[in-house]
C-alpha cells in the first residue's frame, strides 16, 4: 500500500505549490501516472480523498491521466507501445533489450487554485 505515502507526498506538494503562488484553495489537481510506475490510480485516489480533509485541498478533485508504456528496441530500433504494465520483449523482433521511453511517470501536471 505504498500509494498512501505517494498520496501524502502529492498532497504536500500541491499545498506547497498553491501557497507559493499566493492562493489559498485548491479546486483540482491533474496528474499523470505511467502504467509501469507501479502505482494503482484507484488506490491513489482513494487515499488522496481520505487525507485531503481539513486542508486547503479538501474540495479538490483529482484527475489522473494514465500514460501508456512505450519503448525503443535496441536491436531493431523500432518504437512500440503496450496497454500492459510491463514489457518483456519487442513485438517486432522479440529482443529483450529495449529502453523504456514513457510509462514510468508520476507527475503533477496542473493545479486549479483560487
Amino acid at each position, binding site marked *: 500500500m505504498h500509494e498512501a505515502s505517494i498520496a501524502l*507526498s*502529492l498532497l504536500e506538494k500541491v499545498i506547497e505549490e498553491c501557497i507559493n503562488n499566493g492562493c489559498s484553495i485548491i479546486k483540482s489537481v491533474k496528474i499523470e501516472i505511467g502504467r509501469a510506475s507501479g502505482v494503482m490510480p484507484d488506490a491513489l485516489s482513494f487515499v488522496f480523498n481520505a487525507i485531503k480533509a481539513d486542508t486547503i485541498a479538501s474540495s479538490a478533485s483529482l484527475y489522473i491521466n494514465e500514460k501508456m508504456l512505450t519503448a525503443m528496441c535496441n536491436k531493431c530500433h523500432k518504437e512500440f507501445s503496450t496497454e500492459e504494465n510491463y514489457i518483456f520483449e519487442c513485438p517486432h523482433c522479440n529482443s*529483450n533489450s529495449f529502453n523504456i521511453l514513457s510509462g514510468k511517470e508520476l507527475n503533477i501536471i496542473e*493545479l486549479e*487554485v*483560487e
Partner: protein
Amino acid sequence: MKLKVVSKILDANERIAQENRKIFDDKKIFVINLMSSPGAGKTSLLEQTIKGLKDFAKIGVIEGDITGTDDAIRIDALNVPVVQINTGGGCHLDASMIQETLMELPIDDINLLFIENVGNLVCPAEFYLGEDIKAMVLSITEGHDKPLKYPMMFQQSKAVVINKIDLAPYLDVDMEKIRRDILSLNPTVAKFEISCKTGQGINQWTEWIKTNCLCRKH
C-alpha cells in the same frame, strides 16, 4: 486560476535521495540496496557476505523492518556497525529514513553500506534511497513463477542472488525457467546461485562485489 506545474510527485523523496547520494560519494561509500520478499534470506546473505568481505571492506548495515530488532542483533554479533529502522507498518524504506539514520552510523569509517529493505517484492523498487545499485534475493522456495509475476524489481536490480539452492532436490522448482525469465527481464543482470546454509556460491558473489563495487569509489 490554473497553474502549470510539471513536477514529480515523489520530488521530496528524490531530492533527499540525491542528498544521500552526495554524502555517499563524498565519503566514498558504495551503497547496495538489498531487496527481496520476506524470508528469502537477505539477512543470511548479509551474514555470509560480511564474513567473506570483512578483511577487504569496512562494512556498515542499515536494517529495515516493520518492527523488531532481530536482524540488527544478528548483524551486530558480527561486529559490524548496524542501525535498525522500524517503519511501523510502512512497506518500504524511503530516502528520509536513510538520511536520519546516517547520523547514527560511523560513516567516516565505512566504505561499503548495505541497506536491507523491508521484505516486499513490490514497493521497495519504487523508492530511490541514493544507493549505487539495487540487488535482490530470490529464494527458490518462493517458486519459479516469481520473476514474471514481480518484474519491476528484477528489471531494476544490477544483481540477482538466487538463494537456497541446496533445497532444489526437494522442490518441484524449474531452475531453468528462473534463469531464463530473469535474463529475459534483465539481459545484463549479474546472477548468482547460492546457498547461505552450505556456503555454495557465496564466493562468486563476494568476488563480484570486490570487482564491481569496492573498486568503483577508490
